[in-house]
């Protein structure tokens, strides 16, 4: 069964550093997404991406965040100048008419 692949599975970074989270969506999906889940809380939408541009973003997705599709397979989330409150599980997802498939997540810890 096709999968969404995320790397790394865990990342620890110092406050103020930049991190890049990587994802390989399912190859024939057209919509890509990033979500995050702070420990013990609900899953929150960050951004959706279609046709090489952002189609929708939440109020969480401010200038600290950016997304990119640098080639035909990868989809990245960059977080600049990380803060303690950015610690969370970050999920990448892609979708087609049959619904969403989520990756296994990257657990980001900012220390």
């Amino acid at each position, binding site marked *: 069964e096709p999968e969404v692949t995320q790397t790394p599975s865990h990342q620890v970074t110092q406050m103020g550093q930049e991190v890049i989270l990587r994802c390989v969506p399912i190859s024939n999906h*057209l919509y890509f*997404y990033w*979500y995050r889940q702070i420990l013990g809380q*609900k*899953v929150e*939408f960050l951004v959706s991406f279609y046709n090489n541009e952002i189609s929708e973003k939440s109020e969480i997705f401010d200038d600290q965040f950016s997304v990119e599709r640098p080639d035909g397979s990868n989809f990245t989330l960059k977080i600049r100048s990380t803060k303690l409150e950015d610690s969370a599980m970050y*999920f990448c997802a892609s979708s*087609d008419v049959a*619904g969403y498939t989520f990756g296994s*997540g990257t657990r980001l810890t900012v220390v």
Partner: protein
Amino acid sequence: GIQVEQSPPDLILQEGANSTLRCNFSDSVNNLQWFHQNPWGQLINLFYIPSGTKQNGRLSATTVATERYSLLYISSSQTTDSGVYFCAVSKRADSWGKLQFGAGTQVVVTP
């Protein structure tokens, strides 16, 4: 935005028991999915079910879109069913847009 409420918030089951989880949503939706978040944090797609009934092994789901609720049934529960069950909805009718998640139902199945 759409409000998604799940009940109960917590559920403790003995192995072999049956249970029903509920998801209410505040507005009409065109897409609805149920996910299982396992103890490792992975989000597993269970059902894409904007309306009607579907079954997959011991799990089944029913969505009554006109009454704005969906039910997830777990029969003959096993310890591997433990985790958090999320309902997520979207108003968009095309290949999805952002999903709005409920707060989840934490299920613990004891041997």
